[in-house]
């Protein structure tokens, strides 16, 4: 009976009461309690195992953030463990072997290993947070190891060492899966860091790119809505390039390209989403259009709106094709609505033989574009029926 044997259950109670922070102290005290009596290889192995199982998990958990789980169990839990220890002591009593030996008669005896394991079981049962339960399991491992070493049971020590390895590994995996790291991961410079898969893992602070997105332009009104218009501009420019080279020196296009190159990388992430939104209906329209191009052209246009709508549908189709062809060079810029108004004026002023009806749809909005796309598809269906 030494002081370390007495202190080990008290420290196990501290683990039950306050958490995993007392686990290294418990491990060291348990190792001392093993090594005080004899220093055989069994004792040394048990002490080393106990220290490893107690220090390493705490060091591992200290690399992660506190999970902030609110503990619902109250301060009465360590007293449950203490009362169970008293009952265990009552039930165990003094071993008959030491009771009748004259040197040991009346000597103090405490089943310290069983008491420590009992405290660990109470922690596993009554505490709710994951780290606390893991600490309880490790306390159990410590207690059973102490009991096995005191009773000189080699099999118990070996099996407990294996179980401790399993408990430590599984608990570490759970902690790594659930909890967040404390350390700030530095930004990786490799090529894999640019992929969205590499970026989407991130609650990590080091994830921000050097040329970060400008926060003013990330709003939906700043990115999504003018983007469609700028694509229309790009498409119109592509048509102009194919027909005539007159619009190359257009000032609006130049400024647009300048803003493109400035903010193209920045707004890349936000625009990919918007691009997917706009490309999907256009692709449907293009598939419809590609089946019957001949029916569309000679079709008599009775309604004024349908004329404009077909023109618009052609524009959106070419726009989508051009956007797919020149994604890397002509990223749609994020312009404000004043720039769009200017672009509209320039579109009206510029000589465009293919699109004379541009003035009618000067107030186009995404809803109107969507309606036009639907109308075009409807007309195409009707023409096919006819």
């Amino acid at each position, binding site marked *: 009976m030494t002081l370390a044997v007495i202190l080990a259950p008290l420290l196990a109670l501290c683990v039950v009461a306050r958490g995993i922070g007392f686990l290294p102290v418990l491990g060291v005290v348990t190792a001392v309690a093993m090594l005080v009596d004899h220093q055989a290889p069994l004792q040394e192995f048990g002490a080393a195992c106990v220290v490893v199982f107690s220090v390493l998990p705490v060091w591992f958990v200290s690399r992660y953030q506190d999970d902030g789980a609110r503990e619902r169990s109250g301060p009465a839990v360590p007293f449950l463990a203490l009362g169970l220890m008293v009952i265990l*002591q009552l039930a165990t009593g003094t071993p008959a072997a030491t009771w009748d030996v004259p040197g040991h008669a009346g000597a103090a005896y405490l089943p310290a290993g069983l008491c420590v394991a009992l405290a660990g079981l109470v922690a596993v049962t009554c505490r709710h947070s994951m780290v606390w339960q893991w600490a309880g399991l490790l306390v159990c491992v410590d207690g059973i190891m102490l009991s096995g070493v005191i009773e000189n049971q080699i099999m118990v020590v070996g099996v407990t060492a294996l179980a401790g390895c399993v408990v430590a590994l599984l608990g570490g995996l759970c902690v790594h899966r659930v909890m967040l790291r404390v350390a700030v991961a530095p930004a990786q410079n490799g090529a894999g860091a640019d992929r969205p898969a590499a970026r989407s893992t991130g609650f990590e602070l080091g994830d921000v790119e050097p040329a970060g997105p400008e926060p003013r332009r990330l709003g939906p009104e700043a990115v999504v809505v003018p983007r469609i218009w700028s694509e229309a501009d790009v498409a119109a420019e592509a048509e102009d390039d194919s027909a005539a080279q007159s619009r190359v020196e257009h000032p609006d296009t130049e400024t647009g390209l300048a803003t493109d190159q400035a903010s193209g990388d920045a707004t890349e992430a936000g625009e990919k989403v918007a691009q997917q939104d706009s490309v999907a209906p256009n692709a449907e329209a293009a598939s419809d259009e590609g089946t019957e191009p001949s029916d569309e052209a000679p079709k008599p246009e009775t309604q004024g709106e349908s004329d404009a709508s077909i023109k618009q549908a052609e524009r959106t189709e070419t726009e989508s094709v051009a956007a797919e062809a020149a994604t890397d060079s002509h990223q749609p810029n994020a312009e404000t609505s004043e720039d769009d108004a200017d672009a509209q004026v320039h579109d009206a002023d510029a000589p465009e033989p293919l699109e004379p009806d541009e003035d009618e749809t000067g107030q186009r909005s995404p809803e109107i574009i969507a309606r036009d796309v639907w109308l075009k598809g409807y007309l195409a269906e009707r023409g096919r029926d006819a």
Partner: protein
Amino acid sequence: MMHDLTWGWFFACLLALALQTVLIVLAAPWFSGWVNRLAGRLTGERRFPVGGRWQDIHHQFRRPGLRQRGDGLSSLACRVALILAVFAACMTPVFTLVPAGFPAPGFALLCTALVGASLLLGLPLLVQAGTAELAGYAALLADGLLLPALVPVLVMAGGQDFSVFLAHLRQLSPVGDGAPFVLMGVALFMVTAWKGRQAGEDLPCQLSGVDRALWMLATDCVQLVWITLAADVAWAGSLALPVETGTEPWLAQCLAGGAFWMAKLAVAALFLAGTQLMVLTFPRRARVRLAAVFLLGLLAWQVAYPGQSGPVAQDKTASAQEEQDPAFGEEGSTP
């Protein structure tokens, strides 16, 4: 028993007892201020310096008091509580024990005096009306239940004199056979651990003037006496024992015992400041304290005297086995 005690030793013991009492009474406010300072350092707050508590008591002694309703009873309770606390401090060994023939009180009397002082210190809270009344009732109930919770510890000490008990403990090493008594010391320490304080806050006592100074001094004295008792029980080897050796070794042991007492107080102050980190409500604190005292005392009693709590039938079986197989006892004695 008086025949082997010379008059010289008698007066030396009287002098030592007086010195111990004065030491405890003077050191109590310093210890309280020290614990307060440490707790403030641990919790990251700014608290008074270590001597602030003593200055406060000194300042309150010179202030005129405000007379309120029921103040006469409060002042009487404070005075009686201080007398009881000083009486308990007189019976508590700080650095030396008393020799065998000297009249020494039992442990039960000591604990009763301390619990009585605590009860009387809760009385001024009860007299004044208002919000402090509930806290007064709770404190009174908690202190009243403390004596039943101390029963295992009292049983451990037995009916013998406390000085004789400590002289018996003195031969046991605390890291060896005396380890259960360390547990008993922890149980005694738990008495003061969550005593009426919430993170360094005193109980709201609206006394004023001399009564308040007496109340504060008695509170600190009771706390320090409990701590000293726990330290004595946990490690009795540091106490000097007169008459066994000559006068000069005894004086040297007394000096060493005083130094060890300081070291024990430093450790106890650390633990006390640590317990103040736990934020609990007042009734919950009382429950935690009582349960810890009782269960730790019970465990210590079981560990220290396993023959009294162990099953008796096993005893007979084991003796019968030993009669049949004499090698059984040798096998048990070898490890």
